[in-house]
Structure formats: C-alpha cells, structure tokens
C-alpha cells in the first residue's frame, strides 16, 4: 500500500456493535460513524447526522466498488457430516436472494418487520416508520451469492488489511493467496445448490435429530434469511424448500423448520447477536453450526483455528459513513478537509466503528489513510 | 420413676483445652413420685446434672440407672423444662403441646385430644390458638409444663422454671405445680435458687457445694404437710437451716 505522509489525525472509537452510535452522535461525543445498514439511515432520519458516502464509493476510487461484505459460513465438521443439509441451506439462501432482487420493496418491508415489527421510531418530534428507513437503506446493499474469483480477490484484500492491523496471528499469518483461499473457502455447497436449483429439484437431506444453530446479525445484510423465513410458503410452493417458522405470528422467529419437499428435515435455532465476533465465539463453541456474518470476523475465526469455511456471499457493499449534522462535510473530500482542519486545530474528529477489524473499521481506516489521515484508537 | 445416680462426675473441656470440673462424686437416689429440689450456688453444676439425667450430656464417670436400667440418651420417659422460654414460637400453643405426640406419629385427633387435656390442667384451654409471643411469661412456662406432660413421661426435670417470673406469678405457679404433681404423681427434679421455693415444694432438698458440685446435705421436708404455709414454724425452721447451709458454704 502507498500511504502518503499523514497530514492529520482521526480518532476511532470502537463501540462493540452499532448500539451506542446514535446516542454518541446525538450527544456530540463522536463526529461521525461508519456502520452497516439500516443504522446508516437512522442518522439522517433522526436528524442527527448526514450520510456522506456509502461504502462502495470510499476511496481509493473503485477499490471498494462491490466490496464483499457478509458471508454464509459453516463449521467444517458439521458440513462433513451433514453435506446435504448445508447444500439445502445454500439453496434456500440463493433463492431468497433472487427474490430480494426481484421484489426489493417487499423485501424491505419484510426486513422492517423482522428488525422492528414495522414499528415507528421516535426521535424527539420526528416519528418515522421503520419501513421508510428500510426502503431508504435497501438500494445501498447489493445482494449477491456467487463466490466468484473477483469476489474472492476482494476477500483477500481484507486478509491483507487485517494482517496490517495485526489481528491476524494464526494460520493465515504467512500464507500465499492460494493457501489463503484454500483455508477460507469451500464453494462446493454453492455449486451443488445452484445445480439443484437449475434442475428444479432440491434433494431431501436426512433428518437432523438435534436443532441446528444458525447465527445472524440484525441488519439488512442478512435479509435473505428474513425473506426465506417470512416468505416460506412461497418458497415451499414454488421450489419445494422452505424455512417455516414454528410460530407463524412471531415477528422475529427463533425456531424454524427446514422443509424440503414438504418434509421436515431439521429444526433451526436462529440466534441473533450484536456483532460478528460474538457469532464466531458461538461457532467456536459449537453453539451454532452455521452463521450469517461479516467476512472479517469469519477470517479472524479461521485464522484462530475455528474449523469454519466461507461458503458464499450474502451481499456486497451496504455500509455507510455518517457525520454529525453540524459538520461542513457533504462528501468524502469535504470530510477529509474537515478532518484535517480539526486535526490542525488540535481537536481531531472521532469516528465510531462497530469493532476493531470489522469490515467497516477496515474500510474506514484504509480510506482515511489513503486520504492522508492517520488513525488512532480512542482510549476511554 | 426411680433414679439412682452413682459416683457421677462431669469434667468439661473448654475450647482452649482447659478442664472445668462441674460435678464430682454425686450419689443420689430419687424415689418414685418424689419431688426433689436441688439448690446450690451459681455454676455449681445443677443444670449440668439435669442435662445428664435428660440424656443431653454424658457423664465423665459414674452411671445413672432409671428403674434399674442404664440411661442412654434422651428418652421420652424423662421430660425437661428449661429456665429460658423454650416454646417453639412459630407453633400455636396447641401445636406446641402436641409436639411430642406428633413426633411419635400419633394422628391429629388423638394428639390434639391429649394436648387439650393437659392445657386444661394448666388452665390455658382457651389459649390453644395463640402463638407463644401473645402469652405472658408465666403462661408460657405453663405451656412448657403442659408440653412436657403431654408425652406422659414418668419424670420431669425442671431447671429454674420460674426464675424469670415476677414474685407474684411465681407464687401462683408454685401452687399450681404442687397441684399438678398431686394429680399426676410424676417424679420431679426441680432446680432453683430460691430457698423459699425449695422448701415450699420439695419432699427433700439436695444442697450442693460450690463448683465442682458435691452433695453438701440432703434436707428432708416431708414433716411439713402440703399445702405448706410459709409462716408455720417447721417451714421457717427448715428455711433457716437451708439458708445457713448455703451461706456457710460460700467462702466469704
């Protein structure tokens, strides 16, 4: 990487998930944040911040266009003993992603229900529907599944970035790109799922005796899971594969049945978490077998020796940078300008990121350094 | 019940390993249906003696025969009434009195019937639903007596049962105890600090020495007929004699 001589400082505050970000911004403790959707849209809607850029447009130019984001992962021991199940999950995910791309506004609606019961958010005098927020955020997320060569290349960028950050210390520390890919990916399930979809026949996996734990985050990024569950009837009727909620009235079901050709194959325990590292911890302790998760936590977990593989993409892009309303910044360049002025004035701006080594952290650091700003972690 | 105490002594070992001789060479025979009072200076081992007879402590040497058989542990045939109030405060008066029968496994009907009989005897029939804290000190000790009697033991051990009562109540209780004894004919061992009380109640008075307790003298009181008049000449004379024994026994 070719970092210029730094001409200013920016502080980064890690908030362990997105939870405190709106509060911190509204109380002027931070000058902005980078988050995943829909928490990017929360700021403008609440009137506390302005979106200056979405993650695909972060500098350097085109570097992050279509950057990989969340991925579907599985424990390898589980894959080995239940290959047909993992393939079926892959198929369900791919079908749901297709549905999202064909019915974006319905998908936003479903996600609004999953994340907020389609309720309203109240910010002082402003009240907005969660549906509205999701409809704003959906176009900024690109829902794709294919683990293409280009996509894998994008993933490698994160490995490099994490190496630079010093958080990769295990099996991926000194690997070549090919070795890294071999350690990270297993595209078998994707290929087999596509084959089944193309053949219009999903194979019925043997029944699972125990519930299968599946982790996810409360983000639009994992909308394919929400859509698969909420539209289970449609998928069941159309493709013969469905994730049927055991309680159809639940807004955020936690027990769903995998049905293939009308047969119940397994019970899934859906486990939400605040941030990726938590999910990877659950995977490490075999509490969950599969996870919808951001790629850096998955890379870190594999690096730390968790027997895990990345199976396919879930989405590209889908994060954004927000600054406080009082900021003069309206786009990345004016933001950099502002940050440099503040640094020169001895009051460097503070940006929040959901976690050290998270996808958002990696991109923001990269972009800042690219723009001639050096990053310091804020010590509380 | 007849009690025969032979060469009984008791040495306590304190936490620091010190040896405290409490009783020494006690030889005493208590006849069936006898009312025996035990007098002695504080700390001379009166309570210890009763506790050993009740089976709550073991003697260091010596033995106790109950109707010819060796004593072994607490027995239903010997009931003890303690100086401090010892009622179960969470049980009603009736449930307190029927406790002994309850642990014997007698059924409700039967044990309440027996308990009521003895509550009647101590004049507290109308208080059976009350909790102990609602009673006065004297009433509580009467409940304790009823509880002890309800299992129909052959002997009653009473450790300064009236010590905490005021003078008037105490006199009343003494008269009532006499009455109860007359009706039920138990063997009674009665510890007291009051010479007056001992002379009023006892057939014989055992006077102990200072610690370690030994028997100084056994004073017979039978010649004074019941109910005793505290002003009659015999009474006053025996009282004087016992008082002399006690003050002569102290070292000052």
């Amino acid at each position, binding site marked *: 990487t070719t970092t210029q001589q730094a001409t200013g400082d920016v502080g980064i505050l890690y908030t362990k998930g997105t939870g405190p970000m709106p509060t911190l911004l509204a109380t002027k403790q931070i000058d902005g944040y980078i988050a995943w959707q829909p928490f990017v849209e929360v700021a403008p809607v609440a009137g506390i911040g302005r979106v200056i850029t979405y993650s695909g447009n972060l500098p350097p130019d085109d570097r992050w266009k279509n950057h990989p984001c969340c991925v579907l992962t599985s424990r390898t021991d589980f894959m080995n003993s239940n290959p047909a199940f993992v393939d079926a999950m892959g198929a369900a995910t791919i079908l749901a992603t297709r549905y999202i791309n064909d019915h974006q506004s319905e998908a936003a609606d479903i996600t609004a229900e999953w994340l907020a*019961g389609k309720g309203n958010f*109240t910010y*002082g005098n402003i009240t907005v529907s969660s549906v509205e927020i999701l409809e704003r955020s959906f176009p900024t997320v690109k829902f794709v599944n294919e683990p293409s060569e280009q996509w894998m290349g994008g993933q490698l960028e994160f490995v490099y970035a994490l190496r630079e950050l010093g958080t990769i210390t295990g099996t991926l520390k000194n690997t070549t790109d090919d070795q890294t890919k071999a350690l990270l990916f297993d595209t078998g399930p994707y290929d087999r799922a596509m084959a089944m979809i193309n053949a219009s026949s999903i194979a019925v996996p043997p029944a699972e005796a125990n519930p299968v734990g599946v982790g996810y985050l409360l983000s639009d990024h994992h909308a394919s899971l929400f859509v698969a569950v909420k539209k289970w009837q449609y998928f069941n009727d159309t493709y013969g594969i469905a994730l049927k909620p055991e309680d159809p009235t639940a807004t955020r079901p936690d027990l769903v049945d995998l049905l293939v050709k009308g047969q119940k194959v397994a019970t899934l325990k859906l486990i*939400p978490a605040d941030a990726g590292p938590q999910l990877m911890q659950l995977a490490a*302790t075999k509490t969950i077998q599969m996870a919808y998760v951001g790629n850096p936590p998955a890379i870190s977990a594999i690096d730390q020796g968790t027997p895990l593989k990345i199976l396919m993409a879930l989405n590209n892009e889908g994060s954004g940078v927000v600054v406080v309303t009082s900021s003069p910044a309206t786009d990345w360049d004016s933001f950099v300008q502002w940050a440099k002025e503040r640094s020169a004035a001895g009051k460097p701006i503070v940006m929040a990121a959901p976690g050290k080594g998270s996808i958002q952290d990696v991109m923001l650091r990269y972009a800042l350094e690219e723009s001639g700003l050096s990053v310091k972690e804020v010590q509380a | 019940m007849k009690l025969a105490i032979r060469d009984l002594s008791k040495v306590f070992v304190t936490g620091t390993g010190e040896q405290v001789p409490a009783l020494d060479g006690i030889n005493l025979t208590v006849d069936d249906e006898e009312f025996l009072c035990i007098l002695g200076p504080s700390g001379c081992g009166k309570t210890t003696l009763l506790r050993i007879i009740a089976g709550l402590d073991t003697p260091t040497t010596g033995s106790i025969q109950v109707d010819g058989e060796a004593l072994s542990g607490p027995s239903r045939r010997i009931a003890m009434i303690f100086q401090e109030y010892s009622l179960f405060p969470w*049980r009603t008066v009736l449930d307190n009195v029927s406790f002994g029968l309850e*642990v014997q496994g007698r059924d409700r009907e039967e044990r309440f019937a027996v308990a009521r009989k003895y509550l009647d005897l101590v004049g507290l029939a109308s208080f059976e639903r009350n909790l102990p*804290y609602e009673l006065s000190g004297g009433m509580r000790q009467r409940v304790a007596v009823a509880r*002890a009697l309800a299992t129909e033991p052959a002997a009653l051990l009473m450790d300064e049962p009236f010590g905490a009562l005021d003078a008037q109540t105490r006199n009343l209780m003494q008269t009532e105890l006499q009455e109860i004894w007359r009706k039920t004919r138990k063997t009674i061992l009665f510890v007291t600090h009051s010479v007056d009380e001992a002379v009023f109640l006892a057939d014989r008075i055992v006077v102990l020495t200072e610690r370690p307790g030994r028997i100084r003298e056994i004073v017979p009181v039978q010649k004074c007929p019941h109910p005793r008049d505290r002003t009659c000449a015999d009474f006053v004379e025996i009282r004087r004699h016992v008082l002399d024994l006690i003050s002569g026994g102290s070292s000052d």
Partner: protein
Amino acid sequence: MRRPLGILLPILILIVWEIAARFINNQFILPRLETVLPVLLSPTIDILGTGSLLHNAMVSLERVGAGFLVALAIAIPLGVGMGWSRRLDALADTTIQLLRPIPPLAWGPLAIAWFSVGINSMIFIIFLGAFFPILLNTIDGVRAIKKTWVEVAQTLGASERQVLAKVVLPGAAPTIWTGLRVGFGIAWMCVIAAEWLPGTTSGLGYLTLYAYNFGQMHYIIAGMITIGIIGIAFDLLFRSVEDRWFCWRGLER
C-alpha cells in the same frame, strides 16, 4: 404526612424531567415525558417487533423464576447441611467464599459454552445471583437456632430428621426468607444482564438493549421503570409474607 411527602419528590422529579427535557431538546439525553408515558400506559402494544412490555416482563419473570427456584432448591438443603454439620461447613466454606465474589455476569462466556445460548445459560446466571444470599442466610438461620429448641425436641423423642424438619427449618425460616428476598432482588438484577447475552430475543433486558440500537431512549426508560416497578412489587410481596408468617420473629424469647 408521610405519604404525601413521599410522593412529592417523585412528582417534583417528573416536573423537573419534563422541563429539562424541553430545555435540552435532545431525546438521546432525556426523552420527553410524553414519549415515555404512552409506552408505560399501553403495555400490551408491540415494541420494535420484540413484543409488548407486558410480554417481555412476563418472559423475564419466567426466567428469574426458573433461576431462582433452582437456586432455592440447591441453596436451602446445602445451607441447612452446612449450618447443621461443622464437617460439611468446613468442607464447602472455602470454595463458596472463593466463588462468591465473581460477578454472575462474568460467567457469561462460560455459561454460553456450558449451557449453550438461550434459556439455560440465562438460568445459570440468575441462579448464580440468587444462590449465595440464600445459602448464606440459610446457614446463618440454622446456626442461630436456639439450642434449647433442639434439645426440647430431642427430649420429646424427635429423631434427627424430625428435628431438622420440625425445628431447624421452621426456626430458621424467617432468616431463610430474608435470604430469598435478597436473592430474588439480585436475581432480578441479573436477568437484565443475562438478557444481554447473544441469542436472546425477548425479555425486558433485551428490549432495552434492542431499543438502544435504534436510539429509542423512551423505550429504554420505559423499560427501566418497568424493571424498577416489578422489583419493588416483589420486594413488597416478600415483606408482606414476612410480616404475616413470621410475626413471631424478634419476639421469640
């Protein structure tokens, strides 16, 4: 006089709150009263898809109930044993003293590893919160049993089991009950922490944390008030039972 005065301050606080909220005009720092009250007044309306206030309160109560019952079922027999037998006490005391100061919350990671995500690890954490107060009070209560009561029972022919069941347990009951009251209070505090563990999808703790994600402070405060009210309600319940059942306490003699 007491009652009106007691209500004066909360009312004053509410007024100050509302004025301050209007003045600060930042709902993240202090949401207006009129955004919080409707939430409390319609406790059956769904909040952000996590269910209603009432529903989540019931869920939290169920969890506390389960953890509390497990704590009670283990702590009381163990406490009676440790209070009664010097041996058992000597054996277990050091271990208990070592485990006691570890905050229930710090067990979170192990709880998840051992009991897996979900109700069981929450029960474990709640259990840890309630266990020690119940245990220590049971031990205290049993130790403080009047020796005379035990000896009376013995002279009346009670076996050791009967002494334990009919004298020691009822005699120690008021102290044990205090332990239960304190233990329940701590369990109630722990449920909030437990519901912050990953994988939770309901409960008052989860509700507040979830609302936090979207900066919905009025839900957080409504949640806190509900937590507070339920906490008091149970404390009063425990105390009223205490007054009724253990009126003899302190009047033993």
